[in-house]
């Protein structure tokens, strides 16, 4: 249960993402899910910690306002 909504959360650009799975073990709350044809960041679980952003080899992850 999260009490404070983060100002920003991570999103993935699926046009850039190669679904390699590198970002999954970097995510403390396990908010990133990878299936055969999709990778998604769970907006309700992402804490906005940014740990997944820079390590993406192709820059597919970025932060957006948590609208």
């Amino acid at each position, binding site marked *: 249960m999260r009490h404070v909504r983060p100002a920003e959360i991570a999103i993935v650009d699926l046009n850039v993402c190669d679904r390699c799975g590198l970002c999954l073990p970097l995510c403390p709350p396990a908010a990133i899910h990878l299936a*055969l044809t999709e990778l998604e960041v769970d907006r309700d679980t992402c804490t906005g910690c940014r740990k997944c952003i820079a390590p993406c080899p192709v820059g597919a992850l970025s932060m957006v306002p948590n609208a």
Partner: protein
Amino acid sequence: MPDVDVLVVGAGPAGAVAALEAKRSAPQLDVLLLERDRAVGAPVRCAEGVGNAGLREFADPDGAPWVARKITRVIFVAPDDTEVKVAERDVGWILDRTRFDAYLAADAGAAGVELLVGTEASGMRHDADGRWEVAVRSGGSADTYRAKVVIAADGVEAMVGRWAGLDSRVPARDMESCVQYVVQGIDFDPDAIYLQFGDQIAPGGYAWVFPKAPGIANVGLGMVALKSDGRNARQYLDDWIARRYPRGARTGYTVGGVIAHTTIKKTYTNGVLVAGDAAHMINPLSGGGIVNAMKAGRLAGRTAAAAIREGDTSARRLAAYHQAWMDLLGEDHLKYYRIKQALEELDDDFFNGLARTVNKIPREKRSLGRIFAHALVKHPQLIPVAARYFV
């Protein structure tokens, strides 16, 4: 709900060998091997290099269709492009991972393992009897398998262990972000692998050229994003290739992560064993993980089979796997990790100087051991590294 004895998640080298060894140890067991991708071995997320001795424990590479190239030399390239050639006998092989992984999985299949491709584990939970119920998806259909032992060989994403309550998270400083092209029509020694270090080239890692055939190579790099100047791994590699191989044709492309860490604290829990990349069993200095994964898979498969035969798949029983791995390689990785940390403190000037010094050693005497010994004499700042390594 289908029942199996051993359910292995992931048909890479760790999973395929784990499944094979479990079945071989106890042929009466039902062993199921799941692969999420539609084909075992594809897409390749690997530079495909493997040491000779370790490989031969599992398969004979001479004339094998899953081998691309035999390697007999290592060429270290300093940040300023000074090359240091190191000749060792039987250095290793560059595999064709698509074929190699399929070969291992077929071996498991021939022994009686059931293999399902295009099938992924999507979650798991403990039932009232203490067995794991693993949710599995394939195409549009979903099923639940009940297993006595789950072997998590799901690679770098390492989610199965987390579902089981184990900590397989990776600190960002220990994640190598990797990109690789297959480049054709370039000039290099086809019997050598090239490794280049440098803060502007691959900070916290190295760039590589691994030959697949004369003129064709895996050209890639791994770097630590926390040390980046703002470029991502692909941008570093594009810049490196533009400088070194401007005329090469890039005919393939892959990305992925290499976990340059030490083995997770606990690779087991009730009814679960974690093996290979998923357990951070990669050599943290070299980034090599194929043979380690197979060695861990062998231990995991045998441990699972023995535990099921004894009717005890508790964490206490499965702890034998963790101990066996730590004795085999896990303890060594703790030392390698300390060397990795020490090397991170050395700068480009150090490596440039070391390369020039080492090149004064006659080439036939230039082994890795001699290079290290020489480095200690000429570069006393390395002595603390050696001390931390050997203590």
